């Protein structure tokens, strides 16, 4: 067994030039029935111009982690109980409210899943986009309107001038999503978080929206965090991938590394359960069992009940994150027997 370097939480390997650095993030929700550990240790980084995909099922904690970065978790019942989120070297989690607010929308933007419910139904889209300019940049209504028009044209809304005054319900799903994207990049943020931006859309519209995002990213040089459960979308656009399960990052690496040679049983299971055009199979193999109840996490590895590689030592403690290639802290897995998987 090759020596593996265990990553310590206060990792000092170089990451100061990264735009966003998340370290061991922990978020819990205190509800009547108990405590839900929605995010239980997540670490990754994002550089300018890069696309990091956070891949996981519903309930894996991916959306919550994004909300923690934005600082929009309802508290109570949500509480950030540990870890650090550094944006351009500044620690977000301990920042004052007002300072944090200024970063939101300005430097870090967010796009949500269902544009119909995420946009305010009673104000025109022009007004909502313009609000960014009026509030953050102090522009007048006229100036803001001009900027909003420019943005709407940029995201390719046809007949934009007239549609400034239209309301969200008057647009189709794909158009609404573009409007939300326009709103989130209005102030030229350095990081854009897209939380399942295409889940509610048709496949063809999906492709258009993803193309738009890629375009904007190149133009603006943004770092993009893409949160999704869709392996296909990840394969199209991601530079690096973080796989989440039961609130933890269980594997991370470049797209090629993670998808090409998984180092975690869960990732491997995911790869096997998806139809591929390059490999011919007779049956798809789903991962047996169900995701765990976050209120009652089993002792040891959360994936253990469904894992084909499980052994006795998996029941003892949560497996720590270990490097797959020594020295490369961005290629890691949280499995005690990853080498069996890696082969």
């Amino acid at each position: 067994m090759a020596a593996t370097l265990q990553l310590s939480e206060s990792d000092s390997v170089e990451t100061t030039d990264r735009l966003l650095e998340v370290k061991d993030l922990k978020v819990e929700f205190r509800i009547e029935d108990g405590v839900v550990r929605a995010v239980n240790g997540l670490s990754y980084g994002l550089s300018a111009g890069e696309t990091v995909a956070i891949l996981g099922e519903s309930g894996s904690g991916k959306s919550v982690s994004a909300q923690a970065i934005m600082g929009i978790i309802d508290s109570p019942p949500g509480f950030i109980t540990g870890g650090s989120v550094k944006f351009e070297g500044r620690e977000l989690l301990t920042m004052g409210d007002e300072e944090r607010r200024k970063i939101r929308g300005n430097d870090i933007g967010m796009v949500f899943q269902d544009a119909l419910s995420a946009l305010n139904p009673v104000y025109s889209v022009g007004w909502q986009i313009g609000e960014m300019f009026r509030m953050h940049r102090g522009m007048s209504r006229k100036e803001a309107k001009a900027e909003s028009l420019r943005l709407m044209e940029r995201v390719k809304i046809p007949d934009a001038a007239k549609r400034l005054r239209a309301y969200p319900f008057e647009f189709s799903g794909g158009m609404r999503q573009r409007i939300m994207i326009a709103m989130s990049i209005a102030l030229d943020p350095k990081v854009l978080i897209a939380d399942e931006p295409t889940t509610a859309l048709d496949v063809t519209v999906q492709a258009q929206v993803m193309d738009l995002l890629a375009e904007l990213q190149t133009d603006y040089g943004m770092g993009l965090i893409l949160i999704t459960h869709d392996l296909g979308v990840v394969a199209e656009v991601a530079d690096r991938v973080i796989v989440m399960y039961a609130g933890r990052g269980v594997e991370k690496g470049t797209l090629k590394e993670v998808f090409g040679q998984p180092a975690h049983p869960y990732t491997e299971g995911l790869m096997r359960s998806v139809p591929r055009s390059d490999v011919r199979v007779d049956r798809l193999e789903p991962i047996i069992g169900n995701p765990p109840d976050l209120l009652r996490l089993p002792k040891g590895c959360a994936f253990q009940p469904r894992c084909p590689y499980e052994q006795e030592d998996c029941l003892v403690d949560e497996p720590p994150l270990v490097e797959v290639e020594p020295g490369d802290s961005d290629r890691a897995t949280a499995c005690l027997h990853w080498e069996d998987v890696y082969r």
Partner: protein
Amino acid sequence: MTELTQAESLSTPNPSGDDEDIVERSLTSDAWRQLRRRPLFWICITIIFLLIIAAAFPSLIASGDPQLGDQRNNLQGPSREHWFGTDLLGRDQWTRVVHGARVSILIGFLVTIFAAVIALTFGSLAGYYGGLVDAVISRVADIWFALPTVLGGIVLLQVFERRNIWTVSLVLVVFGWPTMLRLVRSAVISVRGADYIDAARALGASDRRIITRHILPNALTPLIVYMAITFGVIIAAEAVLTFIGVGLRKPAVSWGLIISDSRGRIQTHAYLLWMPGAILSMAVFSFILLGDLLRDAFDPRQR
């Protein structure tokens, strides 16, 4: 392994049994479980229970005579013999108030039930069939809705010679059903488009069966909440109408009458107002609070 079974049982649907029964059972049993735990709920139930006892068997609680009094004892404040004091004719107020419960409970009951029946019938028809049926029923409801209750009640009651529980109830039903109907109608409309309705129809279920077995149960929840609240509102409405003079008349015993009798004497004999007023308010309060609690219990978001 037990963890897995637990997780599994939470997420896999029950293979046996009617899916819809499970939904119903769990909603009401969840609601019941939540209600059971709240002390306020039990307080309301107790008060309502006592009111019903007072309505059904007043002599169990009050020993005096509601109609006859000893003139020599008139206008006395609360004492050990007369808990609520006596009125102008020397009648024991406590007895009168207890007997007054019958009128309020009966009218509340009659009005709530009748209005609910009308609302359920026509509301589900309007909601389910839509189109012309809906247009007609809704317009008729709008017309009634345009008449403010107290005002309309006054006009209508003018016409009747006799003012008894039945006429007063009729009038209150007449002005109470439109709101209930709208409630049922919108509940039906919201369920109408559901897939399982289409499925039932594809399996050959008749309209009547679909309405009664599948749609109405969904309308029942908001209706029950509203019925509880309406009960309280009706008790208050009857008191108001009687107070104005268009409701029940002497020698009926009603809280509205008792309070209106106290009119000229409030400054000197305030207890004539306070005590019946407090009982009346408490009765209304219990029903409305019960409705509130029911609404909270049935609200899925509260879980």
